């Protein structure tokens, strides 16, 4: 039956065989693509997570890579739009832009292709055919702040951000608010690397922070964060008794923290980009694409989570406290600040 159709459009023909060759018809033959930012599809971060989600979604619907779902990887900023266009041209019904960097590209392509569906992760694009997927990173960061505050022996914490930007400020604000909520006297040392790539600078900053007495550092600095792990592990190696931790970001960075029999990853602020991708893809498949909507994935829907992998460090006590705060946030008892200004107001109320 599928003889006439070429590979690209026949998509999911094997297996179900119900609707081959009818990609232009839509719903039951829904195909999904995604465009990564420079990090690439295996960045061990949100790009990878998105791709894992898309793969899972594809498997669930009996599709295979390049037949029903696929990704396009960007080498630099100028590649976003051509990649988007390529996927649209290849008849993908829904195209995800992974990361706030793709905001302009999505806005543009959505306008050019009003009949296609698009989704952007981590920021908001206002267009009727774009679903904006955002995460309540501040809420997750709040909980890591709680965990850090519970864990610290020095009452001194560190936050290392990549580029000083609205998104990373959100992480910072949530983290500080969480920590101060546990103990208002806690001191938080904040520094931005200036980029997401320089592990050397990440390590230099971590060195200083640990030297200055911080014992838990939350990083939100991409590959520069590798330097933070490197420094923590080095200190741990030198003095295995010393309590020194890193809090990972985006996905469970437990592996990065492994050092001999120890692990310096206290926890990680996990962003379930994968579940968000699956959910939006399914909505599209079912003809309920949330175009024009801003979807916030937060604690409630498990779009944001806290890793509990490090059982040794992430004690029962911490888990309990974190869960209590989580409830409060979900209930609306606590509103977590997202910006520096909101944080200031939050701190004044403490």
């Amino acid at each position, binding site marked *: 039956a599928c003889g006439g159709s070429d590979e690209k459009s026949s998509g999911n023909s094997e297996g179900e065989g119900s609707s081959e060759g009818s990609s232009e018809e839509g719903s039951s033959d829904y195909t999904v693509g995604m465009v990564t930012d*420079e990090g690439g599809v295996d960045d061990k971060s949100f790009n990878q997570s998105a791709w894992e989600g898309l793969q899972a979604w594809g498997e669930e619907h009996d599709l295979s890579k*390049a037949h029903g779902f*696929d990704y*396009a*990887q*960007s*080498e*630099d*900023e*100028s*590649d976003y*739009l*051509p*990649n988007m*266009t*390529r*996927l649209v*041209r*290849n008849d993908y019904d829904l195209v995800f832009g992974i990361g*706030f*960097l793709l905001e*302009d590209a999505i806005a*543009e*392509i959505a306008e*050019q292709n009003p009949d296609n569906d698009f989704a952007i992760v981590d920021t908001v694009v206002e267009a009727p055919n774009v679903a904006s997927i955002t995460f309540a990173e501040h809420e997750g960061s709040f909980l890591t702040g709680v965990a850090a505050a519970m864990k610290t022996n020095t009452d001194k914490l560190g936050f290392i951000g*990549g*580029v*000083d*930007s*609205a*998104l990373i400020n959100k992480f910072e604000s949530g983290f500080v608010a969480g920590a101060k909520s546990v103990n208002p006297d806690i001191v938080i040392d904040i520094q931005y690397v*200036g*980029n*997401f*790539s320089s592990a050397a600078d990440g390590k230099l900053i971590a060195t200083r922070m640990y030297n200055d007495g911080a014992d838990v550092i939350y990083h939100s600095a*991409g590959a520069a964060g590798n330097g933070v792990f490197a420094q923590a592990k080095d200190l741990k190696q030198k003095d295995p008794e010393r309590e020194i931790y890193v809090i990972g970001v985006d996905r469970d960075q437990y592996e990065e923290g492994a050092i001999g029999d120890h692990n310096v990853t206290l926890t990680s602020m996990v962003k379930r980009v994968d579940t968000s991708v699956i959910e939006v893809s399914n909505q599209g498949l079912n003809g309920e694409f949330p175009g024009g909507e801003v979807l916030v994935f937060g604690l409630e829907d498990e779009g944001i989570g806290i890793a509990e992998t490090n059982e040794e460090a992430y004690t029962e006590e911490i888990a309990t406290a974190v869960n209590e705060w989580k409830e409060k946030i979900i209930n609306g008892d606590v509103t977590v600040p997202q910006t520096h200004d909101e944080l200031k107001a939050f701190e004044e109320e403490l």
Partner: protein
Amino acid sequence: MTSNKMFNILVPVISVLIGLLSGAVIMLGFGYNPIEGYAALWEGAFGDMYFVGETVRQVTPYILTGLAVAFAFRTGLFNIGAEGQVIVGWLAAIWVGITFDLPMYIHLPFAVIVAALAGAIWGFIPGLLKARLGVHEVIVTIMLNYVALYSSNALIRSVLSDNQDKTDKIAATASLSSEWLQNLTFFSRMHYGILIAVFAAIIMWFLIERTSIGYELKSVGYNQHASKYAGMNVQRNIILAMVISGAFAGLAGAMEGLGTYGNMSVSSGFTNLGFDGIAVALLGANTAIGVILAAFLFGALKVGALNMPTEAGVPNELVDIIIALIIFFVASSYIIRWVLLRLKKGEK
């Protein structure tokens, strides 16, 4: 004489072919189909008007950064700082684009000129230090790249936007993009900048090959003592060379700001336009026409490469390898020349 000219064309062409061939061998070695790979590459660069448009869009700043590096080379200077000059040019273009309210025929040229000026200033610093104090331009330009990157990030956040990660879009009156070109190329981001780039190449050619200014610049590049003897102002020429080089790179920034993006984002790393410009310049033998051709090759490879993973399953890093091999073979043109001579002799 004629056979010499033929050689000058034949050698780079052969270099490119050998580079592509080596790429094919690598693809074969790792179990990819080179024909599919290159077909995807071609498709991705020239497959339809959209991709042609995108290729041209990518070529535009490459021409300009290539010219920047080539111009400096022609005058005996190595400008590794095109990268930083692109960034400041971009920033300046955006600044003009969003802060002024002017009719298009003033606004657009104004923005373009200010971008060139910004790049020129960024080239002036290493030029001045080189001319006056003998400080090596390579270090200063490397350092200024970082200064440009970090400062422009800070300026975007604190001055050009209200603590945002990117600036507003420029006014339409400062934009290089054109609906006509976009319609022609199915919404590619091709813009009028290509005309500026080609025009800049003509200027470079004219300046270097046809004017007494170029004569002086080349002379100072070759032999400062003789230039001084001949009454040229050596210091001024060194500075001028870096200023012009910087202006070309600044224009490349304007292409991005006023043409491709219409704004500027806080950036975590370099645009790489400046570094790629080194390769473009050298591939183009530091001549204006060579730079245009090399920029097209480079742009087509870069844009086409994006299509390789999707269409043929070939990782696009392979294109970096192929580009490297092409550069390598162009660099080694002596040996190709040598072989060709041998073959020619053999014929006789």
